[in-house]
């Protein structure tokens, strides 16, 4: 009994000493989805992050950067829990977080309770995060889901001649934002979106979804990601599906294109749009691909970086360049650092990125088509590059505000 209480006291003093360590370095917390449906996305995000550290180094002035990684599972609660752990236990001063759409909304809201810290979005792409009531200390150097779809609707309508499409997407904010971008453009051209199906994140059995796909449409748009996308493709192929496909930004991505098995072959020829294209000839992109490939052995990475790797690379780059601009000065509640970040323009692998007044990225978008490289590996090939895509997608802000926030039924299929 006595032993037990002595042990307890020893334990609590141990906890205390661990928590009270002095801070010499700049501590940065990183979250990624290392669990659940989006595990592969999170892992590749971390690879992108490490590639950026290899290229840019971990030193700012005379200060060393220390990174602490925490895991989430794409649910907002897991993201808030991870971020709180990083701030309160690991005492990080800057956060590179999070990966997924709804996590972004929750972390943005959480950021308001810590106005003294700086949050740099790692990869999440829900529109609401920076468009509705943005947090002054939350910076996003990647475009949102709607921006990543710019050009797709127009290309499908004009070049491919699609007139009627149906969509299948995961039932959460990022995919709403993606479908928002697609519908706005496609219906604006005169196309029709006849049916929008929503499946919960983490769906394993797509039988009823596949059975309900309409066959009087020109193409079916897939807004799925990670394990959900692979499951869908397997079951779609087994069901004998032959429709033309269009894909969202995490559907037509190396996380899916380099999955095992041949279900992915259903994707050859699929039209998609994203913040990157695997075969873009820009030297900056080619260098990034090479850095990524050199950093990891071939069996521990994708043949080419995924969108998540690119986003984590970009956000890590912004973090380091922002810190260098102020020489690691985080005094005065990091105000100098925040000002520097807001003004920063980065030469990211996927084109130049600058921020708008909501601290949301304005960047370059790519319309792509999936090709087989002849050796069985699939890549997304550029068919169109669209520079300077802003969050209101080129609409007048007042008109854009009237469309409403992305949801299952917004926007309506009409010309705004």
């Amino acid at each position: 009994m006595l032993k037990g209480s002595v042990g307890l006291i020893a334990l609590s003093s141990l906890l205390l000493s661990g928590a009270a360590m002095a801070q010499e370095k700049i501590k940065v917390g990183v979250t990624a989805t290392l669990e659940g449906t989006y595990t592969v996305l999170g892992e590749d995000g971390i690879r992108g992050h490490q590639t950026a550290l290899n290229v840019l180094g971990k030193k700012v002035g005379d200060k060393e950067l220390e990174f602490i990684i925490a895991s989430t599972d794409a649910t907002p609660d897991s993201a808030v829990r991870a971020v709180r752990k990083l701030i309160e236990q690991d005492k990080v001063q800057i956060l590179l977080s999070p990966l997924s759409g709804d996590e972004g909304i929750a972390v943005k809201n959480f950021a308001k309770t810590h106005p003294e810290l700086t949050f740099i979005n790692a990869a999440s792409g829900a529109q609401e995060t920076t468009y509705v009531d943005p947090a002054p200390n939350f910076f996003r150097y990647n475009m949102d889901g709607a921006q990543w779809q710019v050009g797709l609707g127009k290309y499908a309508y004009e070049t491919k001649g699609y007139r009627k499409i149906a969509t299948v997407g995961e039932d959460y904010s990022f995919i709403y934002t993606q479908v928002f971008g697609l519908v706005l453009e496609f219906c604006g051209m005169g196309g029709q979106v006849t049916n929008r199906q929503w499946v919960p994140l983490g769906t394993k059995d797509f039988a009823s979804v596949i059975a309900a796909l309409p066959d009087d449409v020109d193409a079916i748009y897939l807004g799925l990601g990670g394990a959900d996308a692979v499951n869908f493709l397997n079951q779609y192929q087994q069901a004998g599906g032959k429709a033309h496909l269009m894909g969202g930004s995490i559907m037509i991505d190396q996380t899916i294109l380099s999955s095992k098995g041949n279900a992915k072959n259903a994707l050859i020829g699929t039209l998609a749009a994203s913040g990157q294209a695997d075969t873009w000839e820009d030297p900056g992109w080619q260098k990034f691909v090479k850095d990524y490939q050199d950093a990891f052995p071939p069996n521990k990475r994708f043949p080419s970086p995924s969108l998540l790797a690119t986003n984590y690379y970009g956000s890590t780059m912004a973090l380091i360049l922002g810190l260098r601009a102020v020489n690691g000065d985080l005094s005065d509640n990091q105000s100098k650092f925040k000002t520097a970040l807001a003004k920063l323009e980065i030469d990211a692998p996927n084109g130049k990125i600058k921020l708008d007044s909501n601290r949301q990225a304005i960047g370059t978008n790519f319309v792509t088509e999936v090709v087989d490289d002849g050796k069985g590996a699939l890549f997304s090939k550029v068919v169109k590059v669209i520079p300077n895509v802003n969050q209101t997608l080129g609409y007048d802000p007042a008109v854009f505000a009237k469309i409403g926030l992305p949801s299952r039924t917004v926007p309506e299929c009409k010309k705004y």
Partner: protein
Amino acid sequence: MSVTHDARVSVRTATGVQRPGLRAWPGIDNPAAWIVAIILLIMPLIANGFFLIEIFATTLILGTIALSLMFLAGYGGMVSLMQLTIAGFAAYMVAVFGTSDNANISLGWPWWLAVPMALALATAFGTLGGALAVRTEGIYTIMITLAIGAAFYYFTNQNWAIFNGHTGINNVGTPRFWGINWRADIPFYYIVLGVAALCYFAVEYISRAPFGLALQGVRDNPRRMAALGFNVNAHRVAAYAFASFVAALAGVLQVWNYRQISPGSVSVGACIDILIIAIVGGITRPVGPYIGALIFVLLRTFALDFLVKIGLDGNRFRLLIGLGFLAIVFWSSDGVIGLWQRWRQRATPTRPIGRSGQRSGQGSGHG
């Protein structure tokens, strides 16, 4: 209400005989219990914000939810997997009736109206679920309650009108009165500690009150209890009502803790986590769930860091958590409490085994 009343009335006949021997509180003469109580009380002096809230307050909240399961499973023989769902329901109700960022959903009531409303609705929800479940036994109870939990999870995930779908409800308002922000670390810790202590002692008390004794009788031999004139189902439903209230209290604390609630918090996995917590801690005594919760929270928080620190692949941290639980359950079918008791018995082999020894033996039968 009438159900609870019924239960009390029917118990009264049987109490006179059993009561005298079980009137003392266990642990009142146990210095270890006092030391733990004092450490918990002065915790804000020992631990900083992270350990205070993320570890200890979270432990107490999860432990209280698991306590409601322990009450049902340990005293009532009913393994309910919907305890977290009830807590989550209460949390959602606080967000819906109180204030949050989602102005189109939240009604903006002050906390002192929203919380009783949430508690009442969640207790009603749990009682109804219990009324469904009591018609079954054993594995069928587990299945019905799991089905309720799963249905609630998918409902919240896809309902946007009340539950705001996968996004959930953000920036839920927390109470501020008497000039104190009750969500600040130290006041919040004491609220959590107070509620957890209240629930703990309530369960301790009920376990030796006539109602609790009758419930244990129902657990051990429902047919005989029915023959003695007890309304078996009414007792079980009343037990669900009480356990739901305990879980609902913890749910309110949970939403105040994270200021946010979303379907991930009420997922099927999280429901099963509560079962794991209760089993690992031990469901023979009310303190078990809290011990289980502490182990669970420590593993969940530090497994990744620990693996990275010893140079292994951090991605496999779930494996470490699973192995930890497996080890505990393998060596002790009645959880950490069972280990502790066996260790104490071995440490003092000559002393005659007292009441606690008997309890453990009796408990392991259904552990």
